[in-house]
Each structure stands twice: as structure tokens, then as C-alpha cells.
């Protein structure tokens, strides 16, 4: 009995009128947790009831505490008929379970009904008394902190980064159960909300357990998603990065200033709840890279598209015959022709397994004993990229070998579409535009003597990493010195068929019982797990191909249409310092020694022995922090792919690629020239309607082209802006019945370390016609002008570039890379091009068909951001340091109906492109009052909710900055300036505290004005007022109307998708916010149509998030994210339904100006929260 949950219902306000006769309501409240329910008395005839209930106490297991939400239902008492529900509040009590988070939940919560929306508010107090449970076999993981933030939270210090954690749980979707036919929409929605809440809780608990097993105490970069698979069920899955965090005792030291060297392993062990060697150790042991590359290669329907590792742009893949030859020469050397089907490191073993697995045509879902899914794909479908693939199976056959070390220099695995025919029918496509960058420069560039040392270092970190099943990190920014080198983007997609499982064990009786893989034999969760496992393996091997041992900025997503599901994963291949993982090496050793795995022990020892050199090397790397991460991670002499390397423009010692794409945030130490900007590639492709297998094949056939085109667009737009690197790259592919949408967003910047990008040169196909030539030259001029304009706009004036660019933005030939545009082009052009533009360097846009013309047009029609605006999809905008505290988070959703059914690809593209462009224009217009300002963390999501609908949703934050910033070059000032708000116009949001006299007389509320705590104080006040008035209700009630001057008790809560708020210091993390809501209406017209409906729903979701944060004692949500917004409508029936899933971290922040004014009092926050707890 390790926990006691206590809840008290204080009061309600603004309740709806439930009794038409009296225009009043007889409200009472049911409080439910688990299977226990308490009720308050009925408070008759009032819209502002004062229940002031006793404390309802629930004695429960902490396991339940983690899984279950507290459910509060407000009802209207009816003597003669059934009581009517007014609405519900679900309160996630997880934040109360960690000692460092909130201590009490207290405040006004909106009462929410899935049909009517918010109907009044209720004031609730919740506390938890937790008894320590040291049972190591416990099922709960109380105390593990969760953060959505994808960096080390601001008031913590990373002692150790353990690595990837993932989990998923599956259940039937209540909406598709038979019972749904006979219950009301409300009941169905509530069942769904509750189920997802339960599943989220369970998922979090299980992930927490894994973290404890790893010896960590926190999950950072926690990303939870759900897949509505319709008939086949509901999947809730999550990934994150397990860490051991130390709370900074002095919260006034910038978090970034931590010195990682201070972290002593012993301390860490002490801190983490239980550093117990566990089963997990075994797992990681087995994941040595040398495995019989078995089963996973079989692909069910899986067409996995091992996607682009973006690399130097020079080699381009083309499907036509002509260019192919050329391409092979440029890109893939001799290898491709030799191994047309399966490229990659041709391990014989692998090839065999591969072929033996793939042909199985059986449709039926296989039992869980086999790790294959349905296998439908044609044999030829697959091109393997990965050099090695650890698999699930490896667990049963742990044959470790020393080969592991070999992977330091992975064999080149570039697979090309060497065979056109093959590509066409092939399901998969891999174009390795690998880019990437230099490693620790492995020998080649850095001089030989560094070679061996580096190799050792690499081995050592790699060993540490390879003991993890997946060396993935969901973080996007890192403690200084952690990220050494960045390779490039790695991504993988796979198309799967969702099949309904016939599982006799799934009776109706278990409708709410969670299915999870431990408790049940149902194969579904394992199937889903295997799917992801497969993708992750692929990612891992891509990273290896780039000479990297880790993947950072890792994320996963799905797109589901009917029974087809696209699974996607992407990240950035990187080399990490072992600094934050050293402990794990030690840890590993302990574990291993117990298990007597001698081979590994020696490996670990070796790793340990190298630590000294590691440190020194690490130090050396830190000498040039601004460019080190750009240096190629692979051996130049043994490059995995041809990329154009130059010496780093900063240090001139190591090699860098010409272009760098990543999914992470711009490292704070990076040297950047000028400002950055949001770059989007948008694409729409028609697809024939099809069913099942055929549909999946069609989609997988389209995917490669889609990705290729997106990539081309990105590259062109990048060049057009004269930039050379992309950060925060996120490619979303969304599938509909008759089209595929692709949207790639990233923030382009000019990295000083990388070479200046070449311009874009247009080449005509048929030079016969004079007008045509003119046309071309006009276009060329336009492009040149645009590039020049952009350089000015983004202040890109690298000093060493000046001479090169004089007069014309067209760069010297050697600066160019080449881009071929068309899919069908004859070989003679190629030679022609060769003649005119020199060799591999030309970055040429060829106009050979209308397609290309369109593309160039769209390239040029991308409207520039209006003056005063900047935009990016990363956390911060390079080149802007002096943010003010004015910020506005917003969500905008648009749904476009394609009126013309027979649209061509070009037509669709234009529609989609316009939709996005217009949306951006609207945003700029709406936010014009904030100029000069930057839209940060612009997050687009696209969906195809129905046949002819395209939905685009954007969430971002607009932040004002001070225009008159001095043009500081120094990065040193970033940290300071970032946090420093020049103007304190925050007050614009502070409601004047009408009750200041009252509250200041109240010692409880004097917490330095951190925020006007919406604790129990307002309610106490209100209730005393109410009591003072003898007449409970009615209009003649108040004398001198005190009522209306009760003042605002509403805490201002800021929301931002960023992990920080400029000009403030986060002094406490209160816990994760993870909320799921459904809203439905059967009176769509009356609610203002679809727009009115969604507008109020989104506003309601914001309100509920704010209320929960305020109740936890917080005043902001950081890392806010709207992960899902599923909108469905049926205007003919006057109905609509929408599901929204949001997440973020509740925090308390204080203004830096206040910090300076008052002496540091790190405990003010906790004092505040605890005091509000005692308030009643």
C-alpha cells in the first residue's frame, strides 16, 4: 500500500444552467480513482456551488498512481430521472509522484464535456502521500522525471546520458468496439479519452522502469505518440533518452556552464534510485553489431525506404538510362553494377538470409514466434543499406566477436539505382546523398599521428555505445563537448499493412483491460515492436555507413490511411564524446563481470584504459568548438561515398563537406555567418486509389520519388538563399486515398566552417531557339538577383567570400555542385553539360521539360518573409540574440478542399504550395504588431483527412527581439543575451492584482510575485464572500456588488514550443503535461461551422493546459507540442469530431530582472508551492 491519494472538492463557478425551470443547477461531484468512487453533497440551486468537501482518501498502489488519472465528474442532481453529467476533469497525478516536481495540485480546472466543451470550472485540491518502496521487483517507477524538452533541462546537470528508451502498448480502440453501436457518442469519447490516459500512464511507468534498470533517474526528450489504427486498434508508443540528472543546487548558474568533468560516477549511483544491474544489461551485451543478419530483412509489406543521407550534392541519381552511367561514375563507383539488388556490404551470410526470407508470400499474420511480419514484397524490392544488423534474434545467439571494432571504418555502402528497370519496379530506393562530415577526422585530414589515438577514442566510445541496442538520442541539443561530429541525416521509412488480428482472447469482457506484451500473448504489440525494431536497425546501419556510432535528434512518426501505415524514423548520424557515457562503461563492466562475458569485459577494459587519452583528445577537440562538429566523421581516404570535401574554413585543419543536413538544433557554439531562415520543400503526388497490398505497393513505389524531389527542392532553396547547412530537418510524408503529401521543413544557415555554396545555373535543353535562350537568361538573372537579395537579407557576408562573389553571385565553377533535374533526359545533354560547366562541381538546374520550369518558378515564387520577420523551425535563430520577453505561441489549422478532382501533379503541387505559403503570409500578417520578431520552432504538420482534403496545422512561437542589436559576432554572448530580455514588457500580460491588499496581507501568497498563485487562496476568498452574503443566488444578491470585483484569480500561463523563455530563468520543472482530448458536435452549423468548432476546441485545449499548469503552481509550459490534431467532419449530418494530443513541461520561471533585484532564493519556488498547499 505504498500511496495515499487525497482529493478535496472546494467549489465550482460559472456552471451551466441544467434546470430550465429555475435557471439553476443542483450540482454534486463524483471523485473516482481506480474502482473507488466518492461523492460530494448536492449543492442545491446554484451556478457557483461551494462544496467544501472533506478530504476523499484513496489508498492505492503506486503502480496505479502512475497509470490512472484522477477522474472528477460534475453532475446535476435530478430527483426523478437520471442525473445529468455536466462534464469531467481528468487530473494526471504523476507530477506529484516525484519529489522534485509539484507537491500539490490546487486550482480551477475547466469542466470539460466532449459534446459541449468547457462548462464552468471546478476548484480542486489533490495531494499524494507516498511511502518509499524499495522493492526492486516493483512495477512502478515513481520518481523518474519526464521531460519533453529535447535538451538537458535548464536547472539540471547531466551526470550521465544512458541512451534510448522506447516502449509501446496496444489496445482495441473503443470507438471500434461493438458496444460503440449502442452507447452515446459522449460515452464513447470518454471511454477513449480514459483509455488513452490509462495507456499513457502505463507507458510512462514502463519507460520509467527501463530507466531505473539503466540506472538513470530521468527521461529527456520524451516523445509519446498514438496511432489510431482504426479497426486494428490503438497504439500508444513513446521514445526518449534516459539520463541521470542532478539538480543544480545553485539555480543561478547557467545550466550550460556545467563542467561535465565534475560528475563523479559514485555520486551518480547514489542519486539514481536504484542502480541495479538488470536484465537490460544482457540485452545490450548482445547487441554487438555482428549478427547473423537474419530475420529482420524479410519484409512484410515493408518497403523500407532507406532514405537519404543527405550529402554533398554532387552526385544525383537519375532513373533514366543516360545519366545513369554518369551517375554511377560519380556516385557509386564500380560497386553498383556489381551488386545490383542488394548493395551494401555484401556479407554473404546476409545475402542468403535475405533471399531466403523475402519471398514468403503468405498474407496471414504470422505468429509471434517468428519475427517476420507478413511478407508480401517482391524479392527485388529491397536494397539493403546496412552493413550489419543486430536483431532480436541475436539475443538467443550471443556470439560476440571482435569485429565490432571494425565498424570504425565501415565499408562504403552505397547502393544506387544502378539499374533503371530495377528502380522502377523496386519498392525501395536508396540514394545516398550522403553528406556528412568529418569525423574526428580519422587520420586523413588531421595528420597521421592523430590517427591511432582517435581510432582508440572512437573504439572506446563506440564500445560504450554498441553495448546499447540502439545508440539513439532524442536530444536535439547537447551539453558542451558531448557532440563531437555530425555525419548527416539518416532516415528510414517502411510501408506496412495493418491487419485486423483475430484474437479470440480479446473478448468484450476485457474492453478496458490493457493489453500489453508482458501480460498477454496477443501478437500485436510484438508485431508493432518488431516493425519499429526493424526501422531502428536500419537507422543504426545508416549511421554506421556514415562512420558514426550514434544517432542524435532521433524521432519516429507514422502516417495511417485506411489499412496502410507508413512508419518513419529519422535522426542525425553523429559521433559523441564518451564523457557522458564513461560511467556506463564502468557500469557495463560490473554487469559483465557478473555474467562472466569475458570477451566483452576485455573490450570494456580497453575502453576504460583509454579514458585518459579520451580526455586529452576531447580537449583538443574543444579547441575549435565552433567548427569541430562539421568535420567529417569518416575516413577521407576511405569515404563511404564521394563528397566534395574542403578544409574547414575555420580551423583549416580538418575536412568538411560542402553541405550539411541535420535534424538537431544548431549547436550553440557553432560559428554562423548571418541569420538563418525557414526552408520548406513541399510536394504533392497523385496516387491511384487502391486496396491493401496494391495500395501499399503503389505507395512504396512513390515514396522514393517523393523523397528525392523533396530533397532536390530543399537543396535548390538552400542554394537560393546562399546557405550551406540545414538544421532541424523534419520530413513528413502523409498518405491519403489518392495522394501523397510530402513536407520537409528545416532551418537553413550559413556555417562559417563550410565552403560557400555555389549559385544556381540554369541550363537549357535545346539551345536552338533564341527566345528560349532569352527566357533562360532572364530566369538566370532572376535567380542571381534573388540570391544577391537573400544574401543581403540574411546578412551573409563571409569575409573570405567577398572577392569571389564580386560582380556576380554566380560562383566559380569549382564552387558549384551539380543538380540534374529531369527523369528523362538523353545522354548527349550530359556531355554537353560537362563541356559547359566543367566537371562535378556545377550546380545546374536543367530546364528540359515543363516540370522543371514549374519547379524553377515555384523556387522563385516563394514569397520572402516580410520586413521585420524571421522564421526558423529550430529553437533559436542564429544571429538574433537580444530577445525581448514578448512572446506569442499559436496554433493555426487550415483544411483545403480540392475542388477539381482531376488534378495533375503540378496542379496539386501548386495548390499545396499556395496553401502553405498563404498560411505563412497570414501568420506574418497576424503577428505584425510584434515586429521585429522571429517565428521560432515553426512546426508544420500535414494530413489528408479525406479524399479531397488537405490539412495543414502549424504551431510556433513568435518572439520579439530588439532591433537595435549591436552586431556582435561573438558567440560568447549568446548565452547571456539569449536569456537577457532588454525590455520588460512582460507586464502586458500581468493582470493587475485587484486583491493586492488582501493577498499581501496573506503571508502565504507573498511569494515574490512569482505568479499570482491560483492556489486555494482565491477560492477561500470567494467562499468567504459567498458565505457573507445571506442570499445564495439571484440578482438582488449582492450589496454594492462585491462579486464582480473579486478580481482576476487567473494565473497567466505562458506557452512555448521552445525549451526556454527569453529573459527568464526556469527555477523548477513541475512535471510533464500530456493531455488527450476529444470533442464532438452534432450541431456543427450552430457552433459556427467547422472553423468555429475547431477554433473553440483549440482554445479549450489551451485553457485546459494552462489550468493544469497553474494548478501545479507553474506559470509556463515549455517544449509545448501539439502532437496530433485529427479532424473529421460530416457536414451533411451537421457533425464533426476532433482529437487533439498535446504535451509539454510545466515549469516555474522568474524574470531575470527580478532575480537581480532580489537576492537569490532558490527555495522560493518550493516555498511557494508548499505554502499554497497549506492554504486551506
Amino acid at each position, binding site marked *: 500500500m505504498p500511496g495515499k491519494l487525497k482529493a478535496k472538492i472546494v467549489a465550482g463557478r460559472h456552471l451551466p444552467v441544467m434546470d430550465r425551470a429555475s435557471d439553476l443547477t443542483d450540482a454534486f461531484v463524483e471523485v473516482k480513482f481506480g474502482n473507488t468512487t466518492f461523492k460530494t453533497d448536492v449543492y442545491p440551486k446554484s451556478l457557483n456551488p461551494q462544496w467544501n468537501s472533506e478530504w476523499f482518501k484513496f489508498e492505492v498502489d503506486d503502480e496505479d498512481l502512475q497509470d490512472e488519472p484522477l477522474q472528477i465528474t460534475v453532475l446535476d442532481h435530478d430527483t426523478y430521472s437520471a442525473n445529468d453529467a455536466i462534464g469531467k476533469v481528468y487530473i494526471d497525478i504523476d507530477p506529484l509522484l516525484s519529489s522534485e516536481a509539484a507537491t500539490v495540485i490546487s486550482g480551477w480546472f475547466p469542466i470539460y464535456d466532449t459534446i459541449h466543451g468547457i462548462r464552468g470550472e471546478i476548484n480542486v485540491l489533490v495531494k499524494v502521500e507516498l511511502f518509499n518502496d524499495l522493492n526492486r521487483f516493483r512495477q512502478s517507477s515513481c520518481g523518474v522525471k519526464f521531460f519533453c524538452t529535447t535538451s538537458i533541462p535548464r536547472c539540471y546537470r547531466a551526470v550521465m546520458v544512458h541512451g534510448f528508451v522506447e516502449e509501446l502498448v496496444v489496445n482495441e480502440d473503443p470507438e471500434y468496439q461493438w458496444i460503440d453501436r449502442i452507447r452515446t457518442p459522449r460515452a464513447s469519447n470518454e471511454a477513449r479519452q480514459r483509455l488513452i490516459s490509462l495507456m499513457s500512464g502505463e507507458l510512462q511507468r514502463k519507460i520509467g522502469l527501463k530507466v531505473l534498470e539503466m540506472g538513470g533517474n530521468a527521461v529527456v526528450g520524451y516523445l509519446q505518440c498514438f496511432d489510431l489504427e482504426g479497426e486494428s486498434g490503438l497504439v500508444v508508443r513513446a521514445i526518449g533518452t534516459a539520463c541521470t540528472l542532478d539538480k543544480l543546487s545553485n539555480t543561478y548558474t547557467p545550466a550550460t556552464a556545467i563542467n561535465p568533468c565534475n560528475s563523479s560516477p559514485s555520486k551518480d549511483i547514489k542519486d539514481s534510485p536504484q542502480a541495479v544491474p538488470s536484465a537490460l544489461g544482457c540485452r545490450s551485451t548482445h547487441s554487438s553489431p555482428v549478427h547473423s543478419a537474419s530475420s529482420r530483412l524479410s519484409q512484410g509489406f515493408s518497403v523500407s525506404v532507406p532514405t537519404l543521407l543527405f550529402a554533398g550534392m554532387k552526385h544525383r541519381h537519375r532513373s533514366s538510362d543516360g545519366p545513369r552511367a554518369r551517375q554511377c561514375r560519380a556516385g557509386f563507383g564500380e560497386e553498383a553494377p556489381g551488386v545490383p539488388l542488394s548493395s551494401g556490404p555484401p556479407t554473404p551470410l546476409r545475402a542468403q538470409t535475405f533471399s531466403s526470407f523475402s519471398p514468403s508470400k503468405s498474407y496471414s499474420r504470422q505468429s509471434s514466434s517468428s519475427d517476420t511480419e507478413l511478407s508480401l514484397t517482391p524479392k527485388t524490392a529491397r536494397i539493403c543499406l546496412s552493413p550489419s544488423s543486430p536483431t532480436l534474434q541475436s539475443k538467443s545467439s550471443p556470439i560476440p566477436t571482435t569485429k565490432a571494432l571494425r565498424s570504425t571504418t565501415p565499408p562504403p555502402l552505397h547502393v544506387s539505382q544502378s539499374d533503371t528497370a530495377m528502380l522502377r519496379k523496386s519498392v525501395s530506393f536508396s540514394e545516398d546523398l550522403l553528406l556528412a562530415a568529418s569525423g574526428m577526422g580519422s587520420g586523413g585530414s588531421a595528420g597521421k599521428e592523430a590517427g591511432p589515438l582517435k581510432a582508440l577514442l572512437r573504439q572506446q566510445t563506440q564500445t560504450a555505445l554498441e553495448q546499447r541496442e540502439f545508440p539513439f538520442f532524442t536530444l536535439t541539443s547537447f551539453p558542451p563537448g558531448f557532440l563531437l561530429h555530425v555525419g548527416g541525416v539518416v532516415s528510414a521509412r517502411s510501408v506496412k499493412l495493418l491487419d485486423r488480428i483475430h484474437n479470440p482472447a480479446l473478448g468484450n469482457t476485457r474492453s478496458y483491460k490493457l493489453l500489453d506484451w508482458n501480460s498477454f500473448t496477443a501478437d500485436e504489440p510484438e508485431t508493432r515492436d518488431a516493425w519499429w525494431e526493424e526501422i531502428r536497425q536500419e537507422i543504426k546501419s545508416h549511421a554506421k555507413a556514415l562512420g558514426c556510432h550514434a544517432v542524435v535528434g532521433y524521432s519516429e512518426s507514422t502516417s495511417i490511411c485506411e489499412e496502410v501505415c507508413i512508419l518513419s524514423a529519422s535522426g542525425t548520424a553523429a559521433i559523441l564524446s564518451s564523457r557522458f557515457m564513461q560511467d556506463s562503461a564502468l557500469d557495463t563492466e560490473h554487469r559483465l563481470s557478473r555474467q562472466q562475458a569475458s570477451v566483452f569485459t576485455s573490450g570494456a577494459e580497453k575502453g576504460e584504459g583509454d579514458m585518459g587519452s579520451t580526455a586529452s583528445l576531447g580537449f583538443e577537440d574543444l579547441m575549435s568548438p565552433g567548427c569541430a562538429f562539421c568535420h567529417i566523421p569518416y575516413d577521407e581516404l576511405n569515404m563511404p561515398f564521394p563528397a566534395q570535401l574542403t578544409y574547414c574554413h575555420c580551423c583549416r585543419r580538418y575536412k568538411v563537406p560542402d553541405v550539411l543536413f541535420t535534424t538537431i538544433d544548431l549547436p550553440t557554439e557553432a560559428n554562423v555567418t548571418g541569420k538563418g531562415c525557414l526552408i520548406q520543400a513541399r510536394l504533392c503526388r497523385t496516387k491511384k486509389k487502391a486496396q491493401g497490398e496494391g495500395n501499399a505497393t503503389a505507395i512504396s513505389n512513390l515514396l522514393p520519388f517523393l523523397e528525392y524531389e523533396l530533397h532536390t527542392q530543399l537543396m535548390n532553396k538552400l542554394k537560393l538563399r546562399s546557405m550551406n547547412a540545414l538544421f532541424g530537418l523534419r520530413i513528413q510524408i502523409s498518405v491519403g486515398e489518392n495522394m501523397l503529401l510530402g513536407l520537409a521543413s528545416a532551418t537553413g544557415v550559413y556555417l562559417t566552417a563550410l565552403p560557400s555554396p555555389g549559385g544556381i545555373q540554369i541550363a537549357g535543353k535545346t539551345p536552338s531557339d533564341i527566345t528560349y535562350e532569352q527566357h533562360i537568361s532572364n530566369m538566370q538573372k532572376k535567380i542571381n538577383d534573388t540570391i544577391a537579395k537573400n544574401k543581403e537579407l540574411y546578412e551573409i557576408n563571409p569575409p573570405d567570400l567577398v572577392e569571389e562573389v564580386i560582380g556576380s553571385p554566380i560562383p566559380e565553377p569549382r564552387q558549384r555542385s551539380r543538380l540534374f533535374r529531369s527523369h528523362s533526359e538523353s545522354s548527349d545533354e550530359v556531355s554537353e553539360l560537362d563541356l559547359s560547366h566543367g566537371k562535378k562541381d556545377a550546380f545546374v538546374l536543367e530546364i528540359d521539360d515543363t516540370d522543371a520550369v514549374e519547379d524553377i518558378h515555384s523556387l522563385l515564387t516563394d514569397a520572402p518573409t516580410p520586413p521585420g520577420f524571421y522564421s526558423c523551425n529550430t529553437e533559436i535563430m542564429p544571429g538574433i540574440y537580444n530577445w525581448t520577453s514578448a512572446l506569442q505561441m*499559436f496554433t493555426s*489549422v487550415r483544411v483545403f478542399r480540392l475542388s477539381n478532382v482531376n488534378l495533375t501533379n503540378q496542379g496539386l503541387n501548386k495548390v499545396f504550395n499556395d496553401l502553405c505559403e498563404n498560411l505563412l503570409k497570414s501568420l506574418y500578417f497576424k*503577428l505584425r504588431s510584434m515586429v521585429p520578431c522571429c517565428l521560432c520552432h515553426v512546426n508544420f504538420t500535414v494530413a489528408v483527412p479525406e479524399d479531397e482534403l488537405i490539412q495543414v496545422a502549424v504551431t510556433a512561437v513568435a518572439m520579439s527581439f530588439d532591433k537595435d542589436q549591436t552586431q556582435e559576432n561573438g558567440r560568447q554572448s549568446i548565452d547571456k543575451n539569449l536569456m537577457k530580455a532588454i525590455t520588460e514588457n512582460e507586464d*502586458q*500580460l500581468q493582470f493587475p492584482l485587484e486583491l493586492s491588499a488582501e493577498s499581501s496581507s496573506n503571508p502565504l501568497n507573498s511569494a515574490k510575485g512569482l505568479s499570482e498563485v491560483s492556489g486555494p487562496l482565491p477560492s477561500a476568498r470567494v467562499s468567504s464572500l459567498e458565505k457573507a452574503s445571506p442570499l445564495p443566488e439571484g440578482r438582488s444578491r449582492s450589496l*454594492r456588488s462585491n462579486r464582480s470585483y473579486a478580481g*482576476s484569480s*487567473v494565473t*497567466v500561463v505562458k506557452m512555448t514550443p521552445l525549451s526556454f523563455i527569453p529573459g527568464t530563468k526556469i527555477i523548477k520543472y513541475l512535471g510533464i503535461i500530456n493531455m488527450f482530448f476529444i470533442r464532438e458536435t452534432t450541431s456543427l452549423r450552430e457552433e459556427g461551422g467547422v472553423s468555429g468548432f475547431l477554433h473553440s476546441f483549440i482554445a479549450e485545449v489551451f*485553457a485546459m493546459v494552462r489550468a493544469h499548469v497553474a494548478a501545479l503552481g507553474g506559470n509556463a509550459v515549455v517544449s509545448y507540442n501539439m502532437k496530433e490534431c485529427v479532424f473529421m467532419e460530416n457536414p451533411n449530418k451537421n457533425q464533426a469530431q476532433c482529437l487533439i494530443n498535446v504535451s509539454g513541461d510545466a515549469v516555474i520561471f522568474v524574470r531575470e530582472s527580478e532575480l537581480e533585484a532580489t537576492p537569490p532564493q532558490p527555495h522560493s519556488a518550493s516555498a511557494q508551492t508548499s505554502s499554497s498547499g497549506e492554504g486551506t
Partner: protein
Amino acid sequence: MRRMSMELDVFVGNTTIIDEEVYQLWLDGHSVSDAVRMRLESDALSECEASGEVLHSDTMDQYRTFQMCERLLHCPSKLANQLLFQIPAHRQAMLIERYYEFDHTFAREVLGKKLSKGTKKDLDDISLKTGVALKSCRRQFDNFKRVFKVVEELKGPLVENVQHHFLLSDSLARDYAAVVFFANSRFETGKRKLQYLSFQDFAFCAGQLISYWTVGAVDNMMEDMDVDLEKEFLHDLKDLKVLVNDKDMLDQHKSLVCYQLKGKIKAFSEMEANFKNLSRALINIASKLTNTKDVRDLFIDLVEKFIEPCRSDKWTVGDLTLFLTHYTSTAHTLEMFRFQILWERYMGVIKSCILKMYHD
């Protein structure tokens, strides 16, 4: 065409964005398309280079926001406590103030009328006559009615009640108090002869009446309501008749006034000739105020019996001011006159009302 196929288009900010210009257009009752057109034409936005499409989207969004807020604006105190929209306090105040602001031309038409369904039906005509859009008329009328209903039965000072319940600025609260006061006492304002008077004129008079003639004016204990004139006071006014009924007193009063004004006003002779009539008019009005019907006719009586004669004799405002000042003060020096306080209370209000109403 393209706009037609935009199925859904919403923008929701964590802090609710309110464009004051659009808010005004909405309050003025313009349709979305009208509003878009007007915004396109306005200079303020020309630098943004906003297209019609962008403006349409923005306007729709704003209108929706306002519609959602409207429910809360009906009870402004809720706006501060609601959780749905996060609006900074000063913006809340702006929203409320603007929502409750009204066109004086419109208010002038409704002034003194019963705030009932019947009147609401006449809003079309009022809209036509005043040029205020019907939608806006309805909003303003509903505001009057809402304020009236809440304040009607409350005790305490009218202006303060309005201010507290509707969180309005002082000046706007005063205007509402006037509207409520007129609606409650149903003063006649519609006669042709009163047409020249503006809402402001009446609002000023209402303010005077509320401040000096109601119960709250003398008794701060809030025992009665501020909306009604004090019955006792009105009854006592009959006592003032002595000023005209007692011949000696009337003559003495006249000679005192004439002595004071001689050489000071241009219309002296006219005044001298008319003194008895004028005095009788003012005293008669006072003595009749016990009668509800005559209370309603207060303003028309003042115009017909006092202002018009003066105007025809071409009194200047200065003349009038001096006359009324001395007319009031000299009464105190009359030996037999015992109703000094009553007189002061009556004449103070009458004097300022007349002066306010004395214009073309």
C-alpha cells in the same frame, strides 16, 4: 474561387490576439466582406501589402473570436475569471469598454423609452434614421437593457453600480446611468421641441438629477435605490409655491433680482417685464413634480415654459447665468422664505439643466 474551397481556417493564440480596428468594425455591425473591403481601403494596412485573401482570413478569425467572447462580455466580471481566453487585463478593459460604448445619436433616440420588446422592434427605423447599422443598434439596445436589468434593483449609487458590475470607465458608467435613469423615469424626450437637445445634454441633466434629487444623493446609507427621485423631496417642492402665491414675496424677489442685475445683462428690460412669468413657470414645474406624468414632462416643460420665452427675448447664455444665479441666491434674503435647503436643492439642478439646454 479559391477561398470557397478553404474548408477550415483558424488561428488560436495562447494570448488571444485582438485587432482593435477589426473589433470596431465588428461592433459597428459590418459584415465580414464589408470589413475586408474597408480594411483594404484603409491606409493603415497598406504597408503590410496584405492581400484580400489574407485580410479575409484574418477578419473571419477575429469575428469568430469576438463572437466567442461576446457571451463573456455580457457579464464582464466573468471575463477576468474565465479560463478560455488569456487576455491581458488592459485588453480586457478595452474589449469591455468598446463593447459597451454606444452611439449618442442612437442613444438619443432610445432615451426615455421603455426598454422593451416593443422598442426593439422599432430599431429598424432608428437604424435608418441614425445611420447606425441595425446589428449595432441591437447590440447597443441589448446593452442598455442588460445594464438596466442588473442595476434597476440594486441599492447604492447608480454610477458606481454600473461601474462595478460592468467594469466600465467612469464616463461611460455615467452615460449608462443616464440611460438607465431616463428609461426608469420615462422622461419625455421625443417631442419635436426637444429634438434640438443632444444625448449629452440629457446625460448631463440626468447626472444632475441623480446627484441631487435621488435618495442616494442625501443619504449615503444606501437604503434606497438611486434610480428613483426622492418622493419626499418632490412632495416638499409644493412648499415653494409660496414664492409666487405670496404677492409681496414675489415683488420683493423681483426687485432684489432686478437690483442685482441692473446694468449687468443686456436683456434687462425683457427680464424685468417677464420676471413674474418666468418665476411662476419654474415654481409651477416644481410644485407639479409629485405627479409622475409631470415628472416625465420635466424637460418639455422647461423648454416650453422657460427656455423658449428667454430665447425669443434673445437672452444670451451670460444673461441667463446671471439671472438664475441671482434668482436663486436672492430668495435666501427673503425674510419670510423658510425653505432654503429645499430651494437650493431644486434650483441648483434646474439652473444647471437650463444652462445646459439653452442652445440652438
